[in-house]
């Protein structure tokens, strides 16, 4: 097997297939990126905007998780905790200080700071222990954060969470560009008002954060992280302080997750345990990173898009399918929208079966990690 890889002729065949796969991944990611970039004009309805904004934020969240699990081999269950810190930071400040960019900045900064402090503490105290114990520690920390969020209801709104207003430029009533009639100018039939600005705030921030992560994994630090994943003992032996590197990337991922949390809160104008802290979100993150492909970053884009579209639109597709097959036996029942979780599960199993290293991972020939 080892010899097969270096036989003349074998190399080009493998790398050609890999190149084609890589090209396909780039094309899909580019398509998703373009769809997101022009989402307000391509899909103007409110629900589609919701989906697009969720995809933007989750790409950042899942990609930052990929830095940990895919690149460095750190299994953490505390990613929603950092996500929540950013979201609650922004939410509490927006509620207390009123809707202004200063509140987003100030509250967000506090949330990010809290994320850094917690990440350093957890990292230094427990990244030297075995992976399974570290995972347990993060699980415990995340649980504590959930309890705190629901118990400190005077500050956090408890289980109900809290709603708040966002700065005025994000309001649908605020025209971005005023036309001759005094109303918002329309472009491709879409009013250029605060709603568009609101979306682009989320999109541009997410895009920039994703670029930052692309840069990190291409940097010398990125190679060291992969080395730690591949062979921790050897990385230490050639002179890298593994604990310091792990703590550093854990902090970086925590900061990016907190920033994603701010975006989520600002977009939803709501923050509560169910949308930022719950273990359902953590599970979503895990599924997205596995389906997309660990250790690729592009996988985050694909995984998030596939999962989110399935979660939002599978029911609609099934309803249409059930209606179309109404005259046939059995099929309408199978396609009943109430059974959407069954089909979602089936899709996951098939994806994992045919793409063992995730969609991007398998296509790019990265092989399964750990």
């Amino acid at each position, binding site marked *: 097997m*080892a010899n097969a890889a270096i036989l003349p002729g074998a190399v080009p065949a493998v790398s050609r297939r890999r190149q084609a796969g890589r090209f396909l991944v780039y094309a899909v990611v580019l398509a998703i990126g373009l769809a997101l970039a022009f989402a307000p004009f391509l899909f103007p309805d409110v629900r589609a905007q919701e989906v697009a904004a969720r995809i933007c934020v989750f790409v950042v969240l899942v990609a930052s998780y990929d830095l940990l699990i895919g690149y460095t081999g750190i299994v953490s269950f505390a990613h929603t905790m950092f996500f929540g810190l950013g979201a609650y930071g922004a939410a509490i400040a927006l509620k207390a200080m009123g809707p202004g960019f200063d509140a987003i900045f100030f509250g967000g900064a506090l949330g990010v700071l809290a994320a850094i402090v917690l990440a350093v503490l957890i990292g230094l105290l427990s990244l030297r222990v075995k992976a399974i114990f570290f995972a347990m520690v993060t699980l415990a920390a995340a649980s504590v954060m959930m309890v705190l969020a629901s118990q400190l209801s005077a500050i956090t709104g408890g289980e109900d969470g809290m709603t708040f207003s966002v700065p005025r430029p994000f309001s649908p009533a605020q025209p971005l560009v005023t036309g001759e009639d005094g109303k918002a100018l329309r472009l491709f039939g879409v009013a250029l008002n605060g709603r568009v600005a609101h979306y682009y705030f989320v999109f541009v921030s997410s895009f920039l954060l994703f670029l930052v992560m692309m840069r990190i994994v291409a*940097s010398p630090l990125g*190679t060291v992280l992969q080395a730690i994943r591949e062979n921790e003992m050897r990385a*230490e032996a*050639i*002179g890298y302080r593994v604990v310091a590197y792990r703590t550093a990337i854990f902090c970086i991922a925590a900061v990016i997750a907190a920033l994603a949390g701010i975006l989520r809160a600002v977009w939803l104008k709501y923050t509560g345990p169910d949308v930022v802290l719950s273990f359902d979100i953590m599970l979503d993150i895990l599924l997205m990173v596995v389906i997309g492909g660990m250790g690729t970053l592009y996988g985050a884009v694909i995984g998030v898009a596939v999962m989110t579209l399935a979660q939002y639109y599978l029911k609609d597709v099934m309803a249409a399918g059930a209606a179309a097959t109404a005259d046939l036996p059995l099929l309408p029942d199978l396609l009943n929208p109430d059974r959407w979780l069954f089909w979602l599960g089936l899709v996951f199993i098939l994806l994992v079966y045919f793409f063992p290293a995730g969609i991007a991972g398998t296509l790019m020939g990265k092989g399964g990690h750990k």
Partner: protein
Amino acid sequence: MTTASIRTENLTIRFGGHAAVDRVSCAFRPGELTVIVGPNGAGKTTWFNLVSGQLKPTEGRIFKGEADITSLSPSARAKAGIGRAFQLTNLFPKLTVLENVRLAVQARAGQGPRIFSRAAALTEIRDRAQSFVEATRLSSVAHLPAAALPHGDQRKLEVAMLAAMEPDVFMFDEPTAGMSVDEAPAILELIAGIKKDTGKTILLVEHKMDVVRALADRIVVLHNGTLIADGRPAEVMALPIVRDIYLGIGAEDVA
């Protein structure tokens, strides 16, 4: 006589009641290639692990030059100039050959934490890594993942990574282990080349007697964790106690 580059003083490690390395004191000078021999279980690899920091001694001290490094972590020792290759191939399997070597160069250059520069664009580091890949004749496979190499090339990559660390003390743990008779000379040639080019201290654990004869300036014999002989190859091989112990294992390993 130049001062020792690496020195152990009463170095001891006990696992339970068993002393795997027992009060070993010895010193090694630059420019000298020492082969450490002894039957299986004699404590050679354990002694290596103590010097490179993977194990902490129960007693005794380790000095690099004048500095006491006994309490340093493996990464700190690597930075202090103690480089180690491993008996079982111990690479970064999914990274390419060039990346494996580049990591060693990069650790040496101390540029690991740079976040916002592209690794591939750091030409100085890349060129340096490339030169070590060329020196070990791995250029044709430089872009392949380490795991895809045949065993012999993986051993060469071990040597390339150690060389790329540019240590003051090279420690090879059975560099020819598991290699065929025709592959082994290439590795030994590389080690001889390192000795000639760098003039650093080289420590080698090796079983094969032809390797010992071809390379050694000095032989240290460990047996049951203790140092029982230390000297020039001809003298050591002539000692009755060494013949007793070593011919036993020599018979099975040389044959």
